């Protein structure tokens, strides 16, 4: 044990030594230590380097407000975490921690040159310089700034840990398990309320953990709460955000304190909905602002007491106190009693309670009232302090190795403010406290401003005879913001506290201003000669302390990030070597390569098979909606552009759906099964959107229509059988349906059985060949598919994917909504005039088609394109111009929407949206590409079997 571990006391386990390393050097601590307490016990005072000036820094605090002592922890490959507060890192055997933001070492840091030149880097310096010469910004200045900035290193490997997430509901959520929170929990434990008590520390107790007189009470309380069935205690859990309607986000840390890595989740996100919230988060002690207040060894008074009483560690051999608040006196008395040497109490106030003075005298502590510390000696650790009677220039030096600051208290109103509860300023505390709640929420204990720490005075900067403009008195330690920076901001015209914050970066470090905001406000208040409440307060935003991305992502990782929808036939496709593509949330087989084939070879083969014999395609992803009711036909008539009322049962129709703005949003072939029943299909990606849109009209515009809509997308597997041999293959398997051309023409539907399975059999074609789409209950999809594959072997049946489907439909000029249309295309633009019911008085989107720009000339219209070089396949998305000789920017008249090699035609084909394209058949257009300009002629979109002879067989 080094000389800084007190001989007795603390909650650490003196029988359990723990070995760990810091910057490669081995140390021993005790079970129950944090990295901060263990290093302090080893006499380490230098923990890190500040962000901007690379100044040496020690520990300021003992909890999550710590701005200085940031470390990185490595727990093996992929388990590197930067920017952890040493005051929150629980040590365990094998803990490997390193300091940050220094090179080559913590003691010798070249970056500290910034400190020497600090006078040239005041707040906002980067706004004023690095502008000349202009080209140096990208190449020199900015990379240099970036290299200097940042704190810890970035992780470089994938994190192997997992993260969990859960929802919880309770009647009462208590945030903070200090005395106030514990009392509230004890009281509620006797009721029937479901209670959750959350605390960020490894052990509940809060401030009581540093007060041995309360330990017996604490033990009894925890025992009682553990025994209460209605109380859940979550320690190592930070409530980080307070959202609408008492919804609180919290993260529980599960494994970082354990010596071994495990399969268990590292952290768990709790999303808690509470009936009532009690905030008992306590208060944070405020540092004092004076020259040299960032020297390692200068720390919060309460922190020194916590280190001594909770961890049994003296933060120095001889401590001085600089106080403006009574609480520091109590801390020093406790420290003295614990055996820590006290050099002096210095208090900037002159009127101190007699009892305090008497106790100091009784303990033999020298007291200097109306004095202030004006400087600190020592670079890596306090060696002495310089003090001065307020208003005089009589300086005196006191030797000490640590200086405690008791600057008063700031209630933790973070969560209260997240909830949009209002705050009021209390002059006596020099702090904001909760005022009116916005949710069912109360603030109790120190975070409401209710405490027994005694009284204090509020100072902005401690009095000093030094030139105020040249001292380094820090307000935000991590970001290196000094009182002078805040004064400079005010001098330069930044008056709102938000401006001052942004200009100086005060409160923007990883502690988010927990120790700096109020001091910053006080200094700005003085500089502006305005009361604090008149200059505003920066907004508190979640999270209360930084939370890992992984915890917030929770289970949503990899396959669970978003579900992938697969069809019943997907497994067969995977087993048979399909290459897949993602379409909306579905994965679909794109093509089925045989050995050695690339996509084009496979697609060519698949196309030949469909045109020559028979192909089989999994169309299960098509959206399906069952429309039922006496007004079903009337409803569809109002939704779709084309007429539906006269469609006979047993027949199908292509439906085109517009949004009310007149642009195409979806299409699909739908069938009338009975006078009051339709089977609609939608695009794969459009199913949910179309159903929602139809429900909207049905429920809110036409509630008088008697119609029911039901999504049946997942109820049916759909196998498309396409090609001249499709009927021959199907006929022997089907019962109850006459497949002859006369009885079952193109665009018809029949119900019957296939292989004994009930089916809705569509005779439809998206390929231009004789085709069927066989709808069977989803669970039978693969069985049907396999039977067709087996029976189809004699016809050389060939499975094909979406790519072949695209080629085949393009050969026929069938559009794909979302590819050939893009949300700016009307039915007329798409050449679908025939699908618009001219005699219908109304349908969704109809009125918009009469708007001036929609009827104007020059709209982009869908046409076919044939390249001059028939082997040349244009790139989809390529732009079209009329005049290839114009300079950039060129006038573009359209773009290629679909483009393929057509194996059937032995040439390339394309579809394009071209301005006035419908009137330009036969005209030549140009496609300028980086490698050269391609020439093409505008053609019909139907490239194959224009008269449709192959369909009607």
């Amino acid at each position, binding site marked *: 044990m080094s000389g800084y571990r007190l001989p007795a006391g603390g909650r650490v386990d003196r029988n359990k030594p723990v070995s760990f390393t810091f910057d490669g050097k081995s140390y021993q601590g005790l079970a129950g230590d944090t990295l901060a307490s263990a290093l302090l016990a080893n006499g380490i005072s230098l923990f890190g380097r500040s962000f901007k000036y690379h100044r040496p820094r020690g520990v300021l605090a003992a909890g999550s407000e710590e701005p200085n002592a940031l470390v990185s922890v490595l727990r093996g490959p992929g388990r590197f975490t930067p920017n952890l507060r040493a005051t929150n890192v629980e040590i365990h055997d094998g803990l490997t921690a390193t300091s940050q933001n220094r090179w080559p070492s913590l003691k010798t840091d070249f970056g500290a040159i910034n400190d020497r030149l600090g006078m040239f880097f005041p707040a906002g310096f980067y706004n004023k310089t690095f502008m000349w010469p202009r080209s140096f910004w990208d190449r020199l200045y900015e990379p240099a700034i970036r290299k200097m900035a940042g704190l810890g290193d970035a992780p470089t490997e994938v994190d192997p840990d997992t993260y969990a997430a859960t929802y919880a509901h309770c009647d009462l959520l208590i945030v903070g398990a200090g005395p106030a929170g514990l009392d509230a929990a004890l009281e509620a434990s006797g009721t029937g309320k479901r209670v959750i008590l959350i605390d960020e520390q490894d052990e509940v107790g809060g401030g009581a953990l540093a007060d041995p007189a309360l330990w017996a009470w604490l033990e009894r309380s925890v025992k009682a709460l553990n025994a209460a069935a209605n109380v859940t205690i979550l320690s190592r859990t930070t409530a980080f955000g307070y*959202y*609408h*309607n008492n*919804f609180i986000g919290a993260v529980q840390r599960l494994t970082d304190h354990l010596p071994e890595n495990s399969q268990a989740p590292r952290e768990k996100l709790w*999303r808690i*909905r509470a009936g009532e919230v009690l905030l008992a988060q306590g208060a944070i002690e405020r540092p004092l602002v004076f020259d040299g207040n960032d020297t390692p060894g200068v720390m919060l008074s309460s922190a020194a007491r916590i280190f001594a009483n909770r961890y049994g560690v003296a933060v120095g051999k001889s401590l001085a106190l600089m106080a403006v608040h009574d609480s520091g006196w109590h801390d020093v008395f406790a420290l003295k009693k614990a055996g820590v040497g006290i050099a002096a109490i210095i208090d900037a106030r002159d009127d101190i309670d007699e009892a305090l003075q008497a106790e100091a005298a009784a303990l033999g502590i020298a007291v200097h009232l109306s004095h202030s510390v004006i400087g600190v000696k020592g670079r890596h650790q306090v060696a002495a302090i310089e003090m001065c009677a307020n208003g005089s220039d009589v300086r005196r030096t006191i030797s000490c190795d640590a200086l405690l600051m008791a600057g008063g208290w700031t209630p933790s109103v973070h969560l209260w403010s997240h909830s*949009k509860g209002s705050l009021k300023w209390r002059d006596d505390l020099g702090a904001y406290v909760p005022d009116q709640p*916005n949710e069912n929420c109360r603030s109790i204990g120190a975070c409401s401003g209710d405490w027994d720490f005694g009284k204090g005075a509020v100072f902005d900067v401690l009095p000093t005879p030094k030139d105020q403009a040249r001292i380094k008195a820090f307000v935000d330690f991590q970001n290196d913001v000094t009182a002078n920076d805040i004064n400079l901001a005010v001098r330069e015209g930044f008056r709102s506290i938000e401006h001052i914050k942004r200009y100086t970066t005060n409160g923007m470090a990883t502690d988010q201003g927990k120790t700096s905001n109020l001091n910053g406000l006080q200094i700005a208040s003085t500089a502006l000669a305005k009361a604090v409440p008149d200059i505003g307060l920066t907004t508190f935003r979640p999270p209360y302390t930084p939370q890992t991305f992984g915890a917030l992502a929770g289970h949503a990782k990899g396959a669970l990030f978003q579900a992938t929808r697969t069809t019943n036939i997907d497994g067969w496709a995977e087993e048979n070597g399909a290459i897949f593509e993602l379409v909306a949330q579905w994965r679909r087989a794109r093509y089925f390569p045989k050995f050695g084939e690339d996509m084009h070879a496979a697609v060519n083969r698949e196309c030949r098979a469909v045109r020559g014999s028979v192909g089989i395609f999994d169309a299960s992803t098509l959206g399906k909606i069952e429309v039922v009711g006496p007004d079903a036909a009337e409803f569809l008539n109002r939704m779709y552009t084309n007429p539906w009322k006269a469609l006979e049962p047993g027949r199908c129709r292509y439906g085109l759906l517009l949004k*009310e*703005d007149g642009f195409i949003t979806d299409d699909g072939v739908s069938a009338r099964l009975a006078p009051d029943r339709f089977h609609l299909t939608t695009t794969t990606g459009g199913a949910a959107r179309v159903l*929602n849109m139809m*429900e*909207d*009209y049905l*429920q*809110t*515009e036409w*509630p008088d229509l008697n119609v029911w809509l039901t999504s049946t997308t997942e109820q049916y597997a759909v196998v498309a059988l396409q090609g001249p041999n499709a009927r021959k293959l199907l006929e022997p398997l089907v019962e109850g349906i006459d497949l002859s051309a006369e009885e079952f023409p193109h665009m018809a539907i029949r119900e019957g059985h296939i292989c004994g399975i009930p089916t809705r059999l569509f005779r439809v074609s998206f390929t231009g060949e004789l085709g069927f789409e066989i709808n069977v209950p989803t669970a039978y999809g693969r069985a049907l598919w396999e039977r067709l594959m087996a029976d189809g072997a004699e016809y050389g049946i060939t499975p094909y994917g979406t790519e072949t489907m695209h080629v085949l439909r393009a050969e026929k000029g069938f559009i794909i909504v979302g590819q050939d249309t893009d949300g700016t295309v009307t039915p007329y633009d798409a050449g679908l005039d025939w699908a618009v019911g001219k005699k219908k*008085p*109304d349908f969704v989107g*109809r*009125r*918009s088609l*009469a*708007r*001036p720009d929609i009827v104007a000339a020059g709209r982009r219209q869908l046409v076919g394109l044939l390249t001059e070089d028939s082997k040349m396949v244009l790139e989809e998305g390529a732009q079209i111009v009329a005049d290839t000789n114009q300079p950039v920017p060129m006038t573009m008249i359209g773009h290629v929407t679909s483009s393929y090699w057509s194996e059937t035609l032995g040439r390339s084909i394309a579809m394009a949206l071209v301005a006035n394209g419908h009137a330009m058949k036969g005209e030549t257009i140009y496609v300028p590409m980086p490698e050269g300009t391609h020439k093409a002629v505008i053609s019909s979109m139907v490239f194959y079997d224009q008269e449709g002879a192959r369909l009607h067989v």
Partner: protein
Amino acid sequence: MILIHCPYCDEKRPEIEFAYAGQAHIARPVDPDSYSDEEWERFLFIRANPRGRHHERWRHSHGCGRFFNAVRDTVTDKFETTYKAGEPRK
């Protein structure tokens, strides 16, 4: 995540069960052809977007599936009331 009272289910449920559906009480005209371009523009695109009391539609999309109306303060995000489609504006 706000809590929303579905007037059909008569329960307060979390927002992720619902889909917002825009300003309420914008009825589709019975005879759109009678609308001028200006009137049609107003129907399609012009929205109140107030700071404060807002009449809006929600759909309990992962619940009963019904569209309903609500009055919510857009500054506090607090609901004043929710009511069934077809009921008069509140």
